[in-house]
């Protein structure tokens, strides 16, 4: 096969998860104003303080302008053309998964995430979010016995308002950035998780997000609180159906890890990236931040990003507690016309804080893939340590890989290491594989998965398998 054939093949490949579920939606009219926010809040039967919180966020947002510093270019979304609320009409509470809308079940089956299978094989509690409203939450009882709260954000607001009120917006304040402010004003649902003191969550907590309603903005809000000496591993995975118009996704994820607690947050993201000309596709403008509040606390972010037309995402750690640890492991794949500007921020405040950054970018087609990372060592951060490794793998002559590392050190005792490499996938490597009887797709899959292994190894088992397949699918035949 010549490289032209291969480029043809990859660029003509249809998005595998491009299907639409036909479920009637209860949808708000397009546009954003105080009335819409009041409607959202009323629909969700929210307490007054939250409505006020949203309205304040809206006021803040109106004074802000969209950020322009990321290494991406796109047509800015028209915020008045988006509908800010859509909920599946059937909202009756389910006693078992069998009561689920058959259409929804079909969607989940196509995604390969049937809840029964998840339950049986992996012992994973799945909180399935479709168009902003959670439709099924499993394993709740088992978690309940341990005092673990794992539910949709809407439910948490009803059932655990004190916890939500105490922590919401404490890590990502409404004033943080344009999209965080927007999210705070209009978020419709998301996940809430609280692990009580001393409890090690016995299973991976998993949420599958999915954008379904055409033209609907998706504004998820996730809050994970790990109380002292607790542990939780949280999985988030996404796929979206094919759409012609751009879909905006502006989520906010906040993590709080207290004294001696650990949160492991893993993401596999495969949203529709747009067609080969870059038309359509999801805009993924996410604010993810974790606070290592207590001494010896730990937060670990692992992400495998293969989707979205534009990704703008920096899962970060504020290392406030002494001896606290922040980690960021990332594989970001871009193909065709995709653009990704992703990385992390490690803010060292406490003494003896430690952070590790491993970023593996893979660029193919005409895509642009940027790593942007900040390591900030505060004056107070005695003996802080950071190790950063940013590698880029190029699959074609027409793609771009960029690295923007920022290092700010205010304390002389800091030790900061930064390594960066850029390489092109080796024809020698591919030929070596071919000569041993592997075909080109196997060869690329093997080489790419080997390249990303340090990150994939950090994923929980069931996610690692999915992620490996995703890498292979995203890059099949993309060497040019």
């Amino acid at each position: 096969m010549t490289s032209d054939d291969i480029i043809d093949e990859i660029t003509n490949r249809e998005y595998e998860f491009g299907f639409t579920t036909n479920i009637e939606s209860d949808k708000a009219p397009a546009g954003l104003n105080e009335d819409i926010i009041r409607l959202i809040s009323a629909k969700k039967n929210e307490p007054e303080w939250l409505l006020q919180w949203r309205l304040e966020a809206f006021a803040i947002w109106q004074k802000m302008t969209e950020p322009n510093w990321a290494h991406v270019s796109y047509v800015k979304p028209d915020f008045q053309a988006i509908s800010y609320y859509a909920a599946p009409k059937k909202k009756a509470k389910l006693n078992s998964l069998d009561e689920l809308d058959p259409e929804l079940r079909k969607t989940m089956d196509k995604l390969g995430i049937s809840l029964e299978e998840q339950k049986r094989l992996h012992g994973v509690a799945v909180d399935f979010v479709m168009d902003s409203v959670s439709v099924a939450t499993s394993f709740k009882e088992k978690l309940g016995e341990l005092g673990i709260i794992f539910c949709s954000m809407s439910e948490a607001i009803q059932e655990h308002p004190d916890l939500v009120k105490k922590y919401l917006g404490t890590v990502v304040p409404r004033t943080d950035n344009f999209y965080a402010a927007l999210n705070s004003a209009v978020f419709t649902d998301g996940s809430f998780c609280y692990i009580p003191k001393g409890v090690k969550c016995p299973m991976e907590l998993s949420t599958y997000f999915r954008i379904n309603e055409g033209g609907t903005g998706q504004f998820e809000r996730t809050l994970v609180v790990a109380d002292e000496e607790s542990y939780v591993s949280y999985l988030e995975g996404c796929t979206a159906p094919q759409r012609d118009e751009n879909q905006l996704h502006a989520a906010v994820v906040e993590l709080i890890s207290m004294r001696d607690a650990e949160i492991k947050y893993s993401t596999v993201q495969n949203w529709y990236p747009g067609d080969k000309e870059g038309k359509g596709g999801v805009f993924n403008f996410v604010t993810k931040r974790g606070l290592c509040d207590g001494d010896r606390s730990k937060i670990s972010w692992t992400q495998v990003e293969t989707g979205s037309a534009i990704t703008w995402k920096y899962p970060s750690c504020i290392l406030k507690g002494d001896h606290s640890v922040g980690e960021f492991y990332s594989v970001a794949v871009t193909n065709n016309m995709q653009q990704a500007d992703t990385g992390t921020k490690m803010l060292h405040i406490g003494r003896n804080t430690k952070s590790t950054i491993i970023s593996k970018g893979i660029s193919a087609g005409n895509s642009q893939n940027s790593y942007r990372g900040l390591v900030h060592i505060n004056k107070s951060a005695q003996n802080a340590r950071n190790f950063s490794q940013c590698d880029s793998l190029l699959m074609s002559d027409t793609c771009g890989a960029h690295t923007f590392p920022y290092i700010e050190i205010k304390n002389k005792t800091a030790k900061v290491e930064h390594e960066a490499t850029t390489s092109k996938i080796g024809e020698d490597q591919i030929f070596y594989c071919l000569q041993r009887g592997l075909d080109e797709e196997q060869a690329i899959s093997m080489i790419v998965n080997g390249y990303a292994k340090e990150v994939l190894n950090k994923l929980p088992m069931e996610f690692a398998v999915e992620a490996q397949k995703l890498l292979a699918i995203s890059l099949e035949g993309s060497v040019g």
Partner: protein
Amino acid sequence: MLTIKNLEASIEGKQILKGLNLEIKPGEVHAIMGPNGSGKSTLASVLAGREDYEVTGGSVTFNDQDLLEMPAEERAREGLFLAFQYPVEIPGVSNMNFLKAAVGEIRKHKGLEPLSAKDFLKLVKEKSALVELDGQLANRAVNEGFSGGEKKRNEIFQMAMLEPSLAILDETDSGLDIDALRIVSEGVNALRSPERSFVVITHYQRLLDYIVPDFVHVLYKGKIVKSGTKELALELEERGYDWIKEETAQAGA
């Protein structure tokens, strides 16, 4: 087994092979020697199907099939193995997984069931012992951080695992100390059989003390200009290539 007729090949417009002929029968070991730049490695690459090289003339028949029509992976599955002069590193891919995939593809091609994990491990144990390859190397990433000698031994180990009908050894002796040379050669000798043929490309007669060839050919300016038995290698060792070059020049004039 392998019939090469008037093979011509070029890279980036420069002609390297200029009408090469070679006939290899099952079980034979052919050594190919020659001065630098004569086309030895090009021959290996062309036979293995490297796309950088363009075949501009001639034919190659391998087990009654047109070898040049087959893509590289097909040639490998049909039983052609190349031990690389510079084995390639594939970071993050364990030698075991790599071999498991390769063995799987070749077995599939032959219509055989995949090996069970147990049988595969047994095979690994048996074959790695042939080249005294430490069990740990099998679990490390393909050639990553291997010494020169380990890389070459790994090539022979892979050959033993894949059981080709034709193995081409491209300067497998280069960069080997005397112990490694012995180990590699013993590994190769253990794999000699009436069905399996070898093409041994080398600069030095030394290797041929260990792997005793049935035939020795001298490749010069893209052609085989002299063929003989193992005594020819000894003569080359003693006299160098100048006399061959002169003979060729005279024959050409």
